[in-house]
């Protein structure tokens, strides 16, 4: 059934339609939550809170943006709130323009992205690197580069201007590249 029809039925109290919407997006929301939180229990909790918000507010959903965009926004806000309560990120390394583009350490990497499914050590390296990235940068990188949203959609979700979104993306890419380069380049 079409998403729009399901939304309309859910807005009229149809629980089956609501269940279908949850099933349609649960994998996307869980995956995105995990990519931001980097922790299975937190990702599950964020997913539950996100769909609870959808169930409570579905009547107010106007359809001006896609439901997926709205869900991405709820996940992002939830994760940002969690990150703020922890307040542990060091912005210094990502805001230092001189150090960000590392033109001295250029080498081929000894592993390719195809190996990701079979390599737990590599997954740990990726988790460690992205956890050093402040949550607001992590969200922009994940929405734009990993989930494949446009810069405009990403900017709308994180409520930033397009130049500010691009600036965060630029810094997040360079920062993560440097972190992975430390572990993956040939000696």
């Amino acid at each position: 059934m079409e998403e729009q029809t399901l939304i309309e039925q859910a807005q009229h109290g149809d629980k089956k339609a609501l269940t279908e919407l949850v099933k349609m997006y649960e994998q996307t929301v869980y995956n995105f939550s995990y990519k931001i939180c980097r922790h299975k229990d937190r990702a599950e909790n964020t997913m539950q809170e996100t769909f609870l918000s959808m169930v409570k507010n579905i009547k107010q959903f106007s359809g001006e943006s896609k439901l997926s965009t709205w869900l991405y926004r709820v996940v992002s806000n939830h994760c940002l709130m969690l990150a703020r309560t922890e307040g542990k990120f060091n912005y210094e390394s990502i805001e230092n323009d001189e150090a960000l583009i590392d033109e001295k350490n250029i080498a081929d990497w000894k592993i390719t992205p195809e190996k990701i499914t079979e390599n737990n050590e590599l997954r740990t390296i990726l988790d460690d690197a992205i956890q050093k990235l402040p949550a607001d940068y992590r969200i922009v990188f994940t929405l734009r580069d990993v989930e494949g949203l446009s810069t405009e959609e990403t900017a709308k979700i994180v409520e930033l201007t397009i130049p500010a979104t691009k600036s965060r993306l630029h810094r997040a890419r360079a920062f993560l590249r440097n972190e992975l380069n430390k572990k993956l380049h040939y000696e």
Partner: protein
Amino acid sequence: MSENKPTCKDVMSHICDNLGEELSSPKCIEIKAHLEKCESCKKYFNSVDNTILFYKKYDVTLSNEAHKRLIEFLGLSE
């Protein structure tokens, strides 16, 4: 970026800025020309491209148990 030829640092910064965008400005054409000739910048480009690919391919699957807990948490049924 300077008005003359871009430096490697300019090119690397441009890669982080514009990867995935289809751009055809004179500046982008100069960057592409530099990239074709410069081994260091090519390697840098590959490492940024691979960084994105690594995270793109790193997916997690929602377990059946987590799905059931979600449906129950929301007070829904199948």
